[in-house]
């Protein structure tokens, strides 16, 4: 029984990391229809930003989060302004362009910072475990779970409770008509892209104490993020959240029954079966394009 509880917690922890990474991607895809293959590199930039801030100012990564968010969002904003904005009518070219941007970002970091894995210290006050009976939970992982829920709630509020969110939803529904009402769709897109990138950056900063910080770390993560977005239904925040939990728990369950390698295969096979029967994901959005 304890083993199962611990494994459920492991699944939740994986889900929270997946959610943090996938949320930005889901928003960018949902709002703009841009398949952003550089998303993993935004995660990597966040990790390196956290490393740089910690190394040069001694700040804890939790304190550094707002700065990381702003820095990576700025990079995202620039990339949107310079490249992605010109390609909105050519979706296939955006895939290629963002992939190229990803390579450029990765190699830039490799050239400037070096290829070796960087050490980022986890926050002191979150070290240790919380134990309830046989259930042992790492405090840091607990923190990431709650933080990802907060980010999810914040994003939801941004989309539904603010003027920006209203404009964004209007642009998603019909760009031309929104522009007739005086909404600057271009700016909305830029800010959305920057927000998505910033979220990826925070995700990157948060996983540094657990993972290895290297220039190629984003490549594997972006695949997981796409799995979450596809299973959840393109552009749906609720979908991304439930898909993250589903994939995290399924991975944990299969890892317990077999091992991590077979678990991964089983999850991927499960996703193939799922999209066979629900090709638009669990919660497809019903907007017209």
């Amino acid at each position: 029984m304890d083993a199962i509880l611990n494994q459920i917690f492991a699944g939740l922890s994986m889900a929270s990391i997946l959610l943090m990474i996938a949320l930005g991607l889901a928003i960018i895809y949902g709002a703009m229809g841009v398949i952003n293959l550089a998303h993993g590199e935004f995660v990597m930039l966040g990790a390196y930003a956290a490393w740089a801030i910690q190394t040069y100012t001694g700040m804890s990564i939790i304190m550094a989060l707002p700065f990381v968010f702003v820095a990576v969002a700025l990079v995202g904003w620039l990339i949107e302004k310079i490249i992605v904005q010109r390609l909105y009518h050519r979706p296939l070219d955006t895939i290629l362009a963002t992939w190229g941007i990803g390579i450029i970002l990765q190699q830039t970091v490799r050239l400037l910072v070096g290829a070796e894995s960087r050490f980022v210290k986890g926050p002191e006050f979150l070290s240790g475990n919380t134990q309830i009976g046989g259930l042992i939970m790492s405090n840091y992982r607990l923190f990431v779970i709650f933080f990802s829920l907060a980010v999810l709630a914040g994003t939801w509020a941004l989309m539904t409770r603010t003027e920006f969110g209203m404009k964004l939803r209007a642009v998603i529904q019909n760009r031309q008509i929104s522009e007739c009402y005086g909404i600057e769709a271009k700016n909305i897109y830029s800010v959305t892209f920057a927000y998505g990138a910033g979220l990826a950056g925070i995700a990157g900063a948060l996983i540094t104490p657990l993972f290895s910080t290297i220039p190629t770390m984003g490549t594997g993560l972006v695949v997981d993020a796409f799995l979450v977005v596809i299973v959840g239904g393109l552009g749906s925040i609720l979908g991304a959240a439930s898909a993250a939990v589903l994939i995290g728990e399924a991975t944990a369950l299969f890892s317990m029954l077999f091992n991590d390698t077979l678990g991964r295969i089983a999850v991927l096979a499960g996703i193939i079966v799922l999209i066979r029967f629900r090709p638009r994901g669990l919660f497809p959005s019903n907007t017209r394009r």
Partner: protein
Amino acid sequence: MKRRDFLGGVSAAGVASALSAPALLTVAGRAAAQGNDIPVGLLFSLTGAVAVVESTLHDAALMAIEEINAAGGVHGMQLRPIIEDPASDPATYADRARRLMIRDKCVSVFGSYTSASRQAVLPVTEQRNNLYWYPTLYEGRECSRNVMYGGAVPNQQQDELIPWAIENFGPRFYMIGNNYVYPKEENNYCKTLLAKYGGEVVHEEYVPLGHSDFSSVINRIRAEGPNVIFATVVGDSDVAFARQYHAAELDPAKMPVISLTRSEVEVKAIGGDAAAGHFSSAPYFMGTQTPENERFVESYKARFGGDQVTHFVSEAAYFQVYQFKAALEKLDPANITPELIRDAAVGITLNAPQGEVLIDENLHTHLWPKIGQWQSNGQAEVVVQSSNRVAPLPYAAYEGQRCTGQGLVEG
């Protein structure tokens, strides 16, 4: 098939054969040193996934070459390093090795970190009857007459380690490794030792290369309660594993991770606090106390920066160049070929940073196994130092097979 596709295919084939023609024409010329210098190939990835480690091997080997040249070279001839970057891609390794051995007429090539890249280069080296100096510890079960193996094989890493671990921590082993040939062969040999010394395997599992979330593994470790975690996890996976193991507050005093692959490079990324208390088995640690090592570490740091580390593979990349030099010194300077270098190298002893090493007639190296315990400053303290030099047995796990001076012998 459409006509256009067909024509495209034909012209592509035409281009390919045109490109390969010059290579075919040069088959006649064999590699041999000519003139006033000795061409030596360096085939370490400076870009791509394994560049993190291989660039340090490149640095160490190049440093040795330059030291030798500064001291006057060999027979008054300078070693001329020819540098190729195979960009972490096995097919490119084979291609660049061919270029070094055929076009540049190198009499030896130093290169590779992974087994995959060594095995890509192997057919080229054997076909050209050249010599490939491979510095990495590896899984054994290979017996080429054209490769000089400078790293440890399973028996050199484990023979001393396993009984020591059983005696100090207990007999129950949990095996965790990445899913490829090295961890499987090491575990294979470990199991024969465990059977001999009364240990047991409580669980054996393999995670994909680059795997980064170990929460399920850690839950399973906690549930099984083994005495020793026998780890052959490599690179970034090892960094993630160590950090998460530490975050889960598993106690190294009760359940240490004993790794065959964790070196100063990984520990630097893991962080001293998370690595402290765990063990590695290797013939060399940066803190090894020999005059040769002091010199090696000092000049390495002076050249590449005070925060750089030396490790058990870069040490071998360094001393192999000196073994190469010692072999050259035994030869007639007018007649230097890879084959003669190989024959001259057998039996050479050399004071390497780890201690005096010897090249066996099976072209592997006799080494000094050590068990190091990691400290919070990122260095290992040697807790067990083998009392004698250990001979390499690349087929130790396979009864009836032996790697000898005549190659692989069955029975």
